[in-house]
C-alpha cells in the first residue's frame, strides 16, 4: 500500500495534539517526590533540600492521634509571599503526602486528613520567593492507619 505523506503527517500532528493534554496533567504530579522513601529524598525532589526553620509556618494537629487512618492536620503559612505548602510524614513508607500550589486568589492554608502508620514527625515546607521554610511537629499514633 502506498503511504500518503500528507495524511501521515496529519495523523502525527493530530496524535500529538491528543496526547499533549495528558502529558501536561502527568507533569503536575511530582513522581520523584512522591516515590521517595525518606523525607530527605522527598525534600531533594521538591528542591527544598535545606529549608530554614520558621515560626511563621504553623501546624495545628493533635499531639496524640487515636486513629492513624485519619489524622487532621491544619497548616497556615504566615511567611509573606508563600506560593506553596508541602506536607511530609517522616515515618510513613512514602513521606510526601501532598503539595499545594497557591495563586494570588488563595490563602496559603490547607486542612487535610492524612494516614500515619506510626508515631512520627510531621514536616511542613512553605515556599516563598524561591526559599523554603520548615516547621515540624511530632504526632503520636496509638493505632496505625497504613496496615490492614
Amino acid at each position, binding site marked *: 500500500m502506498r503511504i500518503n505523506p500528507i495524511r501521515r503527517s496529519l495523523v502525527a500532528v493530530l496524535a500529538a495534539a491528543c496526547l499533549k493534554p495528558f502529558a501536561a496533567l502527568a507533569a*503536575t504530579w511530582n513522581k520523584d517526590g512522591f516515590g521517595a522513601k525518606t523525607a530527605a529524598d522527598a525534600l531533594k525532589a521538591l528542591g527544598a533540600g535545606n529549608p530554614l526553620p520558621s515560626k511563621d509556618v504553623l501546624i495545628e494537629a493533635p499531639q496524640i492521634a487515636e486513629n492513624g487512618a485519619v489524622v487532621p492536620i491544619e497548616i497556615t503559612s504566615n511567611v509573606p509571599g508563600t506560593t506553596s505548602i508541602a506536607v511530609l510524614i517522616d515515618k510513613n513508607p512514602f513521606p510526601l503526602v*501532598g*503539595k499545594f500550589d497557591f495563586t494570588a*486568589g488563595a*490563602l496559603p492554608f490547607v486542612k487535610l486528613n492524612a494516614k500515619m502508620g506510626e508515631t512520627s514527625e510531621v514536616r511542613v515546607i512553605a515556599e516563598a520567593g524561591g526559599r523554603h521554610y520548615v516547621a515540624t511537629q511530632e504526632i503520636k499514633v496509638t493505632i496505625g492507619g497504613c496496615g490492614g
Partner: protein
Amino acid sequence: MAAGPMKMRATLNGGVTDVRVLMTHPMETGQRKDPDGKLVPLHFIQNVTVKLNGRTVVESQISQGISRNPVFTFRLKGGAKGDRIEVSWIDNHGETNQTETAVA
C-alpha cells in the same frame, strides 16, 4: 469502588471564603491486603484543582497517604456571595470527578 459523589460548601467569613470539599475515594495505598490475602492495588487521587470563577487558585498534588474519602479545606481571599467555586480531581487510573457550588 468507582468514583462516588463529592460534597462541597463554600462560605464567606469576614472577607475570606472557606471551601470545604469531600471526595468519595478509596485511596488505596497498595499495601493493604483483602480478606483473601491479596494486595489491593494502589488507587488514589493524584491531583485536586480549585477554581474561583473559572480561574485556578489552588493546584494540589497528593499521595496515597491522604485518608480515605479525602476532606480538604482551602481558604480563598475575598470572594463574594454567588462566586462560582469548582473543584476537580484525577486519580492514578485517570478517573476524574468534579463539583461546583456558589459562595454562600
